[in-house]
């Protein structure tokens, strides 16, 4: 289990007379604190974040299908902050995009939100979550779901409000293969496209 303790204070003294001493410290990669010129605190950045941005537009297929949010030709169409113990990543399993989380421990907090749009032309389009591990007992809230298709772009929002691993649920996190979040949709007709407009997962490491 990863444990990190790395907080310290920096106090920069006046050096007018001596002409020597620390005058500026910049907290760089993986650290918070910015530029310290007098006094301040540097700490590790406890936030890990997956920001999917806009995915790829794919045709709506009748029946139930996994949501394949991103292109398989290359990663990096999204941003991620994975500096410390917890890290997020993407894996495509059976044409379904999973966002998985590695390195979780009890006490970490997780928040998830985003939006999917569809231009389905007829019938209905219903979005549902598929998940594993810590997401099992924290079902997302949807807005605009299901969509009555008319060919126009209609949005479905999804949100999991901040929950604490091991407190909100009793699941012991394992790894990104089991701690993942994904979507599937059920369409009653074929026609139009769907696209993930946004997909944000924030994890704050618990430090006590």
């Amino acid at each position, binding site marked *: 289990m990863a444990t990190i303790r*790395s907080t310290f204070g920096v106090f920069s003294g*006046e050096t007018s007379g001596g002409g020597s001493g*620390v005058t500026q410290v910049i*907290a760089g990669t993986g650290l918070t604190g910015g530029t310290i010129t007098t006094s301040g605190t540097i700490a590790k950045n406890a936030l890990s974040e997956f920001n999917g941005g806009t995915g790829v537009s794919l045709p709506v297929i009748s029946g139930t299908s996994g949501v394949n949010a991103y292109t398989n030709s290359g990663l990096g169409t999204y941003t991620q902050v994975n500096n410390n113990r917890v890290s997020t990543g993407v894996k495509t399993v059976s044409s379904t995009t999973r966002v998985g989380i590695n390195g979780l421990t009890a006490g970490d907090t997780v928040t998830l939100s985003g939006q999917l749009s569809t231009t389905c032309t007829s019938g209905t389009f219903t979005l549902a979550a598929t998940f594993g591990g810590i997401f099992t007992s924290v079902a997302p809230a949807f807005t605009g779901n299901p969509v009555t298709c008319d060919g126009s772009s209609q949005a479905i929002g999804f949100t999991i409000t901040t929950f604490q691993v091991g407190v909100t649920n009793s699941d012991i996190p394992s790894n990104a293969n089991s701690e993942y979040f994904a979507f599937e949709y059920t369409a009653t007709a074929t026609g139009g496209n769907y696209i993930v407009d946004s997909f944000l997962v924030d994890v704050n490491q618990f430090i006590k």
Partner: protein
Amino acid sequence: MGNNLNLITDITSSASASAGGGVTSITSQDGLTSTPNPITGTGTINQVRVSSMVSSSPTPQKALSGSGTTQFAVPVYGLAYPDSSITVVNRGRVGFTLARSGNTIERIGMNGVQMDDTMTLAFDVNFQCPASSTVIFTWEGAGAFDDDSAFTFTGTPITCTGGSQSISVSASGTVGLTFSTAANDGYTSNPQTDYLQMFGTFTNPSSGFIQMDNLNIQVTQFSD
């Protein structure tokens, strides 16, 4: 083997007779690095992002034996722990774990490897086998490292000379793009399922040895 981090920065504060005190030097240590180090005026402190596994001498020779076609794993670590010939740096998110299979430590597993992390790998395999015997080397990594084509080495049969021989193995790329056969395989599970491993399959290996040499693996954490 876990990936415990202890990020320690020593701050040396000394009284200055002329200035009346203040921080004069900051030295970054385990898990942190600074430019310059120590900082005595202006500088930046960064998190260490590179995890590495580097050998300074060959692994103990693994003896060949048997007849017919026999497969031997390339040993990566002596059975004694710690193996002083290998230096492991696990101060960032990524941690190396050595896995034993039977009487051989033959797998290099990784914890915490994630999408867009980069890895470079290089090592040599030294071997000696009876003249006219042959050996075929195969990559049998698993999980996020299961794509044989990402690892460069001589994969065609090699005729043994009876003397010392060697091949080089190398790889360089991005996790989730380069090393896995699966599309968007952007994260690893754990060291038991995501590991590096190589085998040599010999014909009539009645004598000789196989060992790993000049191991150098560097994994650099990615983060926007």
